């Protein structure tokens, strides 16, 4: 695709240049202090706050004319939210989009990290609803900032312990807190625990944007990211053993469980629809 896809009434990438520059400055600070939540002036966008505005502002600020964008929502390229964000990005930039991870240079996602290993020339942007891992400990922003400054994360550890006491294991389904570079504890956005290890020592840059909460944070390439866990209750990912994708036959990936009410049949298929489609295309 070329520039002729771009709506001439908009500035390139919707936001004005000053706004993009300010957001890029916040991103640079976030990259310089891995895991630290950098406040930024979250802009108004033609989508509602809480629908990916944080991720979208990052994407629009860093995207260039030569970039190829992939937008996914819970692993799917075709969900309403992903399609809306992609349309906005195309209408205001005219850039190319793709459903395949390896072709993309910027990937915006909600709730998933793609199955394919990301490269160092790719940037992964995650939409974050609640960036503050201490929000369960204190509702006050001033207190949580002080606790971060003092690396006082007892409240987060206590939540994990409470799960062990009551259920015999930690009960974080998604958004399992991680320690970044041995300093800040951060919410890795509501990705499943399955995706947490992908953050560790990754080749690509991860950027996290929370538009409603007005925070940006980052995990730079080759950074230590450790999921919090007790010595005697090690961190574990969701059990995917014995599951096979009904469409492409993949194993060892994160699955969506599907129930067919016509046949009363339960089956699994890859959560990452682009990955699944690519496998099927290769087979065919």
């Amino acid at each position, binding site marked *: 695709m070329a520039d002729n896809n771009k709506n001439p009434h908009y500035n390139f990438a919707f936001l004005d240049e000053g706004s993009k520059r300010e957001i890029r400055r916040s991103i640079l600070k976030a990259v310089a202090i891995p895991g630290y939540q950098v406040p930024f002036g979250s802009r108004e966008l033609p989508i509602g706050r809480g629908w990916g505005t944080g991720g979208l502002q990052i994407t629009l600020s860093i995207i260039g004319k030569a970039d190829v964008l992939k937008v996914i929502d819970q692993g799917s390229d075709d969900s309403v939210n992903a399609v809306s964000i992609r349309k906005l990005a195309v209408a205001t930039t005219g850039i190319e989009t793709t459903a395949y991870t390896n072709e993309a240079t910027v990937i915006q996602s909600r709730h998933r990290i793609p199955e394919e290993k990301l490269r160092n020339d790719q940037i992964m942007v995650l939409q974050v609803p609640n960036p503050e891992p201490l929000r369960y400990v204190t509702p006050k922003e001033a207190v949580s900032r*002080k606790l971060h400054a*003092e690396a*006082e994360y*007892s409240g987060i*550890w*206590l939540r994990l*312990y*409470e799960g*062990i*006491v*009551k259920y015999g294991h930690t009960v974080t389904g998604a958004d399992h807190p991680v320690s970044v570079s041995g300093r800040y504890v951060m919410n890795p956005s509501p990705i499943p625990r399955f995706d947490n290890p992908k953050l560790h020592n990754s080749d690509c840059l991860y950027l996290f944007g929370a538009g409603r909460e007005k925070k940006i944070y980052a995990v730079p390439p080759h950074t230590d990211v450790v999921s919090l866990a*007790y*010595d*005697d*209750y090690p961190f574990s990912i969701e059990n995917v053993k014995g599951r096979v994708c009904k469409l492409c036959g993949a194993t060892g990936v994160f699955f969506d469980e599907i129930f067919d009410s016509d046949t009363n049949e339960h089956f699994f298929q890859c959560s990452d629809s682009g990955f699944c489609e690519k496998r099927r295309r290769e087979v065919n």
Partner: protein
Amino acid sequence: MDNIMPVLAVRNMSVRFGESCEYCIKGCAVEKGRCPYCHTIWALNKVSFNLYPGEILGIVGESGSGKSTLLKALYFDMEVSCGEAYLSEYREGRENIFEISSQQKRYIRNHKMGMVYQNPVMGLRMNFSNSANVAEKLIAAGIRNAGNMTQRAEYLLSHVEVPVSRIKEEPKNFSGGMQQRVQISKALANNPPVLLLDEVTTGLDLSVQARVLDLIKKIQLELGISMIVVSHDLSVIRMMSDRTLVMLGGRIVEEGLTDQILEDPIHEFTQTLVHSLL
């Protein structure tokens, strides 16, 4: 006791609410805890005392005399306006603990002091299990082994007569006496050398009061912890404390052995207090 090193030495500790003026800073103008010129409230006015090893120090006084403020300030729940305090277990008592960083203050709260609040809501997380409430202190002290923490919580909770079968329950389902027991076990989690008890028996019926006080006494004898017990109930002070401070309007007006204070009070207020027993 002059040649014994105190566990906690407090010097000229003041807590004031308000701007304060030159008259009340000099101290001469303050009457009943309030400056008549600038209306600054002096909740604590240059309070000094020592807490010795293995001692139970009682603090009595009327409502609003500054007893609870004293404990809250010592436990860093409240900023002091001026003054010094030295804890023998922290850097050998050489550093004023009111002037250290908030990280170090948190270290002292988690390792060197325990606090039992008058209102259990202040000291417990009502939506977390009893085990997690005790473990909170252990986590703050850096322990990252869930099994060890559960063992310790079971030991402490059974020590304060909370049935082990109920450690997964939340304290909000417990009676006031049981909540106080959970608070006591939480305060003891890291074997602190100093335990602060703020009106622990208020609101409890007499039989529960007696059991909680017996328990505290038993723990003190077993572990040799130094305690500060705040109460406005003289019978609690008589039963528990070795020495007693009497507070009025943010100041200590009388200090001495408990028997001496209760049998032969010198200050007019103490005399009124002792003779106003129902």
